[in-house]
């Protein structure tokens, strides 16, 4: 099914400047792999050597942090929006 992956500015050069990429996927892991297949280089920036999410990358599905859901295995429904957002400090 089609899902939308939203990218932060740092990753947009990898996909030709677009802020969003629409791909076919049923999990977050598949969505990242699908963007990687279209635009090689993205996965290495978001995932570590073990294939897990990097420490300073947050992923949101339907406005929920996937670390509260099923991580990279979080199931996506049709039309889901997956946002990749760098962690930022504050307070």
């Amino acid at each position: 099914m089609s899902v939308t992956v939203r990218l932060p500015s740092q990753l947009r050069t990898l996909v030709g400047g677009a802020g969003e990429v629409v791909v076919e996927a049923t999990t977050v892991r598949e969505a990242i792999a699908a963007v990687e297949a279209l635009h090689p280089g993205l996965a290495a920036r978001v995932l570590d050597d073990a294939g897990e999410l990097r420490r300073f990358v947050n992923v949101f599905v339907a406005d929920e942090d996937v670390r509260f859901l099923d991580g990279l295995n979080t199931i996506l429904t049709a039309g889901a929006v997956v946002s990749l957002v760098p962690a930022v400090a504050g307070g």
Partner: protein
Amino acid sequence: MSFAVGLRCRECGTTYPAEARYSCDMCFGPLEVAYDLDAAKGVVTRERIASGPSSIWRYADLLPDHGGEPVDLGAGWTPLRRADRLAAEIGVKELWLKDDTRNPTGSFKDRVVSCALSSARRLGFTTAACASTGNLATSVAAHAAALGWPSVTVIPADLEKSKVAMTAIFGGTVLAVDGNYDDVNRLCAELVDSHPDWAFANVNLRAYYAEGSKTLAFEIAEQLGWRFPAQVLAPIASGSQLTKIAKGFREFLELGLVEGDLPIMFGAQAAGCSPVATALADGTNVIRPVKPNTIARSLAIGNPADGPYAIDEMRLSGGDCGSVSDQEVLDSIAQLARTEGVFAETAGGVVIASLKQLVERGTLDRNKPIVAIISGHGLKTLDAIVDTAVPTAVISPKLADAEAALARHHQLEAAL
């Protein structure tokens, strides 16, 4: 003159020029301002610092370049006060309070905002912004007002009334978000993409902003007579302040300004939002985010970006982190006020309650000097105490009434 030479990724070491950039292009790791400490050695002396202004800018050599004139309401150079009466009640030998309630807008955030907006002006920005749990928003709005800049501050809608008012009064745009700080933070990470011409103090200016917290370490060491305290206890929200305090001590050591052992770093969190304390206790530095539920709103960050670094600082120095209940926070605010005449916001209550917990646990040594950071003024969190801090008696303006009320109060006190 600043000895800053650019930005460097804490994770992978990639370097960048001193521009507005909030994370590493390669790995999303946080960027830090890098300094040429070799060049600073011998130039930055105790005398040079001591002859500087009574603000954080006495340490301008070791802060980001302010471009000629800092954006400055007078942040920093706050009192370091010996707290013997509180120390006696808690049972510790030598306790000092770094009283950062005494900043221009009542919290340590003035240090980081002065740094961030000075860099922002140097880089050509003309609008100030931030994601905030309250104190940062107030400070950004105030400094922007003093500059004549518009500001856009983004806060959770359910903040303490006093913090909202203290921010809105400066006349900027205040966006109150229906959500918690982590939602606000995420929104701002996206807003910075659609408004790249806004200087978000803790997003695209974050590297410069964070450096301001080093001045807590610099001042503590200088005020102790160019010595390090044995132990330092700081509140933890994002983890940035504690991490930068430790960095500040290291820079002073490296420059030969202070000799001796670096302080052991201790942290303080509220039990209703203690992802850092939990990860430290579990022996990991992978933080599991939480949904905050505590009266200590200024520390209510469930997904703390600099948490892993704060954990490293505590673990490697032999420190620990407290996790205290809201009731303990309220009791500690009152105890600090009653014994030392210092009125702290809830974050200060978290620190004093953690001090007691960690001394009890034996990880904080009661026989060695301790410096506790009191990061914000109590007027900011009046909501928390307004129901318990009330008049002893309400009386008519008659002497007999006053005497009767005093006698009743005296009897009550005697019975306790």
